[in-house]
């Protein structure tokens, strides 16, 4: 029965193999997929070999069992199953083979009934039988387990697989729901801001066709151009990854206060250097950011990293921190009027950063240019405002605030283009820049020192090698030359001392 089953499975295997090799592989003809295919075949072939070995072993095992059954000393095999748990127990092992015990006892008592010669060498045979008994037990155990494993699993026993499949299904559903919600938010923002953008820019969108470009389920970008005082504006919407279930779960289990994903819109205004698209006439750096994220923003931006850019006091709310090169800049560029508006919508403002040395552009095309960057939150969490007695706003209401903020951004574009620093401020900035350059120079000094040291060592090495390579006569000549040189060097010093 077992043999038949084994060969049956073998037949099934060959069928499975043929089905799998006929499976369609993805069209990408990369070397990776070829390697995968080869690995797959190798493993499959390995399995075939192993299974054939296993089949042989199985057959051998059955053979041994049959032989054991024929021996006189042993009783029927089924009774051995009951004593499986007491394998190590000597007493129980002696129980089934009653035939073993009684002849020995009776041999001593009654010589008539049992011929001692019949059981010659029985003492040697008894341990052998015990060993074989143990072996038999083990094999029967194994065989039983194999039978149990080979037994076809009921459908309900596949519940882990069902749960895993369910998770896949839930993930796919969440993807659909999350990406559609993100698209809704993006379109909502666009509907609110499109009029203002079209009033200000001649070209909205890549080619006036597709305005908001979908980069991924949670990233949308937009390009605008054709305005005085700036070259172009690139707007990117970075939304929460609602389409990825695992990101959402990760956010839930994150410790409080650590980096959370928020829906943000970043407006990067690229300023030209001259002419009507020319932006900042002066070179300065200004940033308004949330106090809690100040260190992070500073480390991310090269121009804000330096300690020359200091914090100044403004009429802005305490949750903001305003940093700039010079004290005049925040005073001029953030008058009370604007500060009040910013304070009113402080939950929506993430970062306002003006700089002439900002690094912008895609990863492989980074460039440093003067740029104004405005980063706003689209849908901030205002539950605590609601608790205080105010009302928690709906999503559309929150999006309407982005229109106000966009207007502020555009006003700043014009303001920065016409902004002029006072001569005193310019002087201060110049000194600061000189100081900064000095500090940078000092930082690199160590590096340059190490390089010079390295060059010296290499030079000495070369000279040594050249010396060794030379013949003895040339070496003598060279040494003479060196001596002369050293004398010459020491000579002027003597004269100076004189």
């Amino acid at each position, binding site marked *: 029965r077992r043999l038949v089953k084994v060969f049956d499975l073998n037949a099934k295997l060959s069928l499975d193999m043929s089905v799998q090799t006929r499976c369609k592989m993805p069209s990408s003809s990369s070397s990776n*997929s070829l390697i995968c295919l080869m690995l797959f075949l190798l493993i499959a072939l390995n399995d075939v070999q192993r299974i054939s070995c296993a089949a042989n072993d199985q057959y051998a095992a059955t053979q041994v069992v049959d032989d054991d059954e024929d021996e006189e000393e042993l009783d029927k095999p089924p009774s051995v199953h009951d004593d499986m748990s007491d394998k190590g127990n000597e007493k129980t092992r002696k129980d089934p083979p009653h035939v073993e015990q009684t002849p020995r006892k009776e041999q001593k008592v009654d010589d008539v009934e049992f011929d001692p010669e019949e059981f010659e060498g029985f003492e040697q045979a008894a341990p052998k039988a015990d060993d074989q008994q143990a072996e038999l037990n083990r094999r029967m155990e*194994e065989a039983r387990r194999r039978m149990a494993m080979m037994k076809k699993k009921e459908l309900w026993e596949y519940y882990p697989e069902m749960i895993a499949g369910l998770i896949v299904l839930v993930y796919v559903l969440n993807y659909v729901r999350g990406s559609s919600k993100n698209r809704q938010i993006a379109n909502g923002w666009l509907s609110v801001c499109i009029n203002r953008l079209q009033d200000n820019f001649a070209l909205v969108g890549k080619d006036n066709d597709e305005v908001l470009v979908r*980069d991924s389920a949670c990233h949308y970008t937009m390009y605008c151009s054709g305005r005085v005082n700036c070259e172009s504006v690139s707007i990117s919407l970075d939304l929460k990854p609602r389409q990825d279930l695992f990101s959402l779960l990760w956010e839930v289990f994150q410790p409080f206060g650590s980096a959370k994903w928020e829906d943000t819109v970043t407006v990067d205004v690229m300023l030209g250097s001259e002419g009507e698209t020319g932006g900042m006439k002066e070179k300065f750096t200004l940033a308004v950011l949330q106090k809690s994220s100040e260190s992070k923003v500073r480390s991310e931006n090269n121009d804000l990293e330096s300690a020359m850019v200091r914090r100044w006091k403004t009429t802005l709310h305490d949750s903001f921190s305003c940093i700039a090169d010079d004290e005049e800049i925040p005073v001029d560029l953030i008058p009370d009027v604007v500060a009040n508006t910013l304070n009113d919508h402080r939950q929506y403002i993430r970062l306002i950063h003006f700089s002439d040395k900002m690094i912008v552009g895609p990863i492989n095309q980074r460039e440093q240019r003067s740029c104004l960057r405005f980063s706003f939150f689209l849908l901030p969490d205002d539950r605590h405002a609601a608790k205080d007695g105010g009302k928690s706003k709906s999503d559309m209401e929150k999006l309407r605030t982005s229109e106000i903020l966009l207007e502020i951004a555009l006003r700043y574009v014009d303001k920065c283009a016409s902004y002029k620093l006072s001569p005193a401020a310019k002087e201060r900035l110049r000194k600061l820049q000189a100081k900064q350059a000095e500090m940078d120079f000092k930082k690199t000094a160590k590096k340059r020192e190490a390089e010079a040291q390295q060059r010296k060592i290499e030079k000495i090495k070369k000279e040594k090698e050249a010396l060794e390579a030379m013949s003895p006569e040339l070496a003598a000549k060279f040494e003479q030359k060196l001596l002369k040189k050293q004398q010459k060097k020491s000579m002027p010093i003597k004269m100076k001392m004189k």
Partner: protein
Amino acid sequence: NVKKSEVRASRRLVKGWSTGSNMQGAKRPDLVRPYTPPPPIPQEELPPDYMALLSLLFGLLGLLLKVNSFEHSLFCSHVGLNFQYKICSWLALYACLSSVANVKKSEVDLKQIASSLIFALMGLSMNYFKHQRELPV
């Protein structure tokens, strides 16, 4: 609608501030700079896609960690330990799905995703079809 008055108020504030702003003449078709699409990022400079890497790792684990001893599996709950080695392949599939969901058009790395997907599916098929025909050695 409650917001409209607030919007108008803030607009008045901001308008008062702007000096020399010519909102009417701001839009200039002659100053349009046409959009230049950024060049495609070469494979070496792509940011690492951790989910795809994770899925490759799990896929390899799922393929290589085979159930060696069926005896052990029967001592524990009959499904629990048996599923443990298959869970690697399932995790590989989940990581692959996650990387596909988060892929950006500008930074797509098709080879990585394709290879991780292949590993995950192969791992799953090896684990499940193997169960039918594998015999413990």
